[in-house]
């Protein structure tokens, strides 16, 4: 969802992990799986600072954005459904 929030922007992996509270051991496997499924595209940054290797940049592909929108809709529907159930229970 963090990637879907700014779909046009390329994002760094480490900063993305910090934003969503994921450590490297969880973040990279997720990114790798998303890329394997064609939901994420990765690119090397141009012109990194001298003495530093170029970093990987990530953003969702079109099908990644569609999947994110779908999941977001499902999550919203579930939240709405559970609120109604709670109201019914009281």
């Amino acid at each position, binding site marked *: 969802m963090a990637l879907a929030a700014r779909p046009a922007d390329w994002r*760094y992996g480490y900063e993305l992990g910090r934003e969503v509270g994921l450590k*490297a051991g969880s973040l*990279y*496997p997720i990114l790798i799986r998303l890329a394997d499924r064609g939901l994420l595209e990765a690119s090397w940054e141009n012109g990194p600072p001298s003495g530093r*290797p*170029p970093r990987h940049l990530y953003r969702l592909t079109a099908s990644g954005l569609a999947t994110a929108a779908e999941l977001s809709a499902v999550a919203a529907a579930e939240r709405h459904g559970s609120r109604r159930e709670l109201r019914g229970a009281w």
Partner: protein
Amino acid sequence: MSEARRDLPRALVEAAAWALPDHRRAWGQAMLADLDHVEGLLARWRFAAGCVRVALVPPRPGGYLGRVLALGLAAAVGVSLYAATPATHVFAVAFAWLLAGYGWLAANRLSPGGLRRLRATSAAVAGAALAGVAAVVGLTVYGVTRYPWAGEDPAGLFSIFLAVVLTGYLAAALTPPRAALPYRGVAARYALPAVAAMGLLWAAGTLLHQAYGWGTTGWSVPASLVVPGVVAALATRAHRDVEAGVWVAACTGLLAGLAFFASGMMLTYASTGWYARDPSTIHDALAVGVDPASYIVGDNLGGLIIALLWMPLLTLAIGAVGANLVGDLHTRTQPD
């Protein structure tokens, strides 16, 4: 924000990047590049630990079978060796753990189709190395079972050393560095005949010594070490590439170490009768209070276990000299 910081977390992430399979190499580079932007030692350690976790349990559906097979094989080897004799208990436990660790990492590193490529390019070397490791283990177990004094290793140092070295042999033979891949076919073509020639020299030295008292067995080892220098030089000349010669030497060293141990222990077992009549062996055995056969088996077993380390290193060094000498000569004789 200038140079990349060299510290232990970086070394850990580099190791994790190395352990990733070929088709995930870019992800290893991405982790390394991200580490340069992680500030604070604790945060760097946390980040490195996460990368190590990715390398140990990479996201790769289908890799589970390889890992399960590796662990099962390691457990089977460990249990068999543990059950063989009490003298092999430390070796069995150490070898099983190391095999399991290596097998796990090796299964993780295999790219899709990697196993097929491994078989296609290095079946001869991999097969010879596997047979060599099995021979070393078999001959050691036989020796310490038949001659219990030879298996005495109170601190377990020889057992652990042997387990570490044999795992290293397997790793070098089955998962060589990526830089060696283009030379695997060449290396196998030169290394196998080279090791056969070295083996003939070792056998000749021992047999001539025992049959005719001709010199000592020691001459054949230095003489055999000329072979890697020659084959590495020949490979360099034939392929006009020093690296080809160096990888031939590395492959020769790998197989020579195992062959030296196996031939040495087989000749020792076959010659215990001769050693039982050899005055210097009898003298040394009496000094430690054991029979000459147990003494010579124990003495040679210890010496040959240590040779598993120095023989490949020396072979590689001599081969590298041979390859570089021919490489220099070739460069100097090229017209400008």
